[in-house]
């Protein structure tokens, strides 16, 4: 195969080559499929799919985790889940996160992306504000900082006695940000938002740049102002990107384990920042209730899928498939 093809040998070899491609079971193609498809697939099945399948199975058992024996108890875990007040609190917190975080992040990212791409001038050529490169680079900083480190930083920023925030605020406004029910969840949300805005801003910038400049110029000639342009041109044009952003952010907010775990290890005052994965982690690794923890995991997966389905449905109902151009 690797010998150079010369002179009269060429046609024969070429014919051979074609024949090899038709004959399916040569060493080349068998080894190729085994390694190229078999290897990654084996790893994926063993370490991702198989644990998922097992988790679903364990959710129907009372397995504790350490001993090898357990009973299949049917839907008992799920019945317990429905009446579990702590789980409901955690689910409620996740839902609050999944509504507030994407909304705030997308609004801020959208405004910033508009400002640095087409917000520069009201008339004439569409350009961003001056120094937009600087704002873009700085806004993206939090994305390259690991979530756990952002959590660590802000657990100290919000520290009641030596934190940055209370240090900058006048006496009367100082709070125990993470330690009281009224501010714990909003403060935690702020950290997630802080970490996410830069990335989605960049995503929207890329999408806005893909809109032809003539579209903006035509709108301006017709007398559309900045808000009108954003509402009638920019948002409809990048609708798909906004939907993608909403799904990613929502899935991230339905998890949020890393942030919450670092900011308030125990679930916050009165479980006000407890999220489902934290509860799962507690059940599985400190209370040895692996069966029940798996049921919580299955519930999480269902909530995530329902959320993604909702976003798709809402987008379709509001006319997502018909793009205005």
């Amino acid at each position: 195969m690797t010998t150079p093809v010369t002179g009269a040998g060429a046609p024969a070899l070429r014919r051979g080559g074609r024949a090899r491609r038709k004959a399916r079971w040569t060493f080349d193609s068998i080894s190729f499929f085994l390694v190229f498809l078999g290897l990654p697939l084996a790893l994926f099945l063993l370490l991702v799919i198989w644990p998922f399948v097992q988790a679903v199975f364990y959710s129907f058992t009372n397995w504790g985790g350490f001993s090898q024996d357990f009973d299949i108890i049917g839907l008992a875990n799920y019945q317990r889940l429905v009446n579990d007040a702590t789980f409901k609190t955690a689910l409620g917190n996740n839902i609050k996160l999944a509504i507030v975080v994407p909304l705030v992040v997308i609004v801020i990212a959208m405004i910033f992306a508009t400002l640095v791409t087409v917000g520069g001038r009201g008339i004439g050529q569409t350009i961003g504000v001056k120094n937009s490169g600087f704002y873009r680079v700085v806004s993206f900083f939090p994305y390259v900082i690991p979530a756990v480190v952002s959590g660590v930083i802000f657990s100290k920023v919000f520290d009641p006695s030596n934190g940055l925030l209370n240090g900058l605020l006048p006496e009367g406004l100082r709070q125990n940000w993470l330690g009281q029910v009224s501010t714990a969840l909003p403060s935690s949300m702020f950290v997630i938002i802080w970490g996410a805005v830069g990335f989605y801003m960049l995503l929207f910038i890329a999408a806005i740049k893909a809109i032809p400049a003539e579209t903006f110029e035509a709108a301006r000639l017709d007398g559309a102002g900045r808000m009108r342009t954003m509402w009638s041109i920019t948002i409809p044009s990048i609708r798909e990107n906004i939907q993608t952003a909403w799904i990613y952010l929502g899935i991230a907010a339905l998890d949020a384990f890393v942030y919450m775990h670092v900011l308030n290890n125990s679930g916050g005052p009165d479980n006000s920042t407890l999220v489902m994965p934290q509860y799962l982690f507690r059940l599985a690794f400190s209370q040895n209730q692996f069966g029940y923890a798996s049921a919580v995991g299955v519930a999480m997966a269902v909530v995530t899928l329902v959320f993604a389905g909702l976003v798709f449905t809402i987008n379709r109902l509001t006319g997502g498939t018909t793009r205005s151009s």
Partner: protein
Amino acid sequence: MAGSNMVEDRVEPRAGRAGRGSTGPGSGGDRAVTVTSHVVLGIWSLVVVLPLLWVFLSAFKSNREIISGSPLALPSSWSFDNFVLAWVDEKLGQAMLNTVIVVGCALVLVMLLGAMCAYVLARFEFFGRRAIYYLMLAGLTFPVFLAIVPLFFVLQTMGVLNTLHGLILTYVAFALPFTVFFLYAFFQGLPGEISEAAAIDGAGKWRTFFQVMLPMATSGMASVAIFNFLGLWNQYLLPVALNTKRNNWVLSQAVASFVSGAGYQSQYGLLFAGVVITIVPVLVGYVLFQRQLQGSVSQGTMK
């Protein structure tokens, strides 16, 4: 409420004003909009930079100085004691080495396996192709949390629990769906004539992939590699559950332990030094490669 609304309150009204300002076509209104834009973006830049600056400055301060001094004042002397303490005593150096090994190996492996798998799925028709594709999609959307408990026992059975190679394999498996998805679209977009030409010239399937198709996919590979790098470097859940031996800790675990670990209330400087050590390499890398990174984001959205 103050935490999350702080941003909104600052942004919304000004954006509203920006909109109204633009209705007057005069250059005076234009200037007002420009000024408000800069104010809004400037405030956000401060919100991003101030906490980082505070961490950076505090890392050089003694505990007494952090507790009694003004938060954003320069340290009285630039002392590296905290850094030495974090690097040596708190084994951040070891954690850094572990992270580089784990992320490096996992990245190379997942790029290779992901590209191979994506190539086969994108360029060949065979029984079960669709099933595999949807299985990957499922792996991408299901919460990692659901798998974490059984995964613990799978790794234990394989004898690789609490080892670096066990963690590498897990990283590869969980980064695989994203890699395959992204590269699948990429390989489908490559012209088919070229691989046919290679086959006619007598190249086998192996050679066609490594010498013809893979080099053509370099730009797509680079984008995915950047995202995978950030994702794996930031990974926290998998190591926290599957890699509990102190000597094998990765950076994210070590830094998190600074907060949850008892006794660190009094060791602010140490914690801040740890944070600086963790973020500086990635931040420097970002500033150096930010052009490529922005290119990657735009490619990611063009799917």
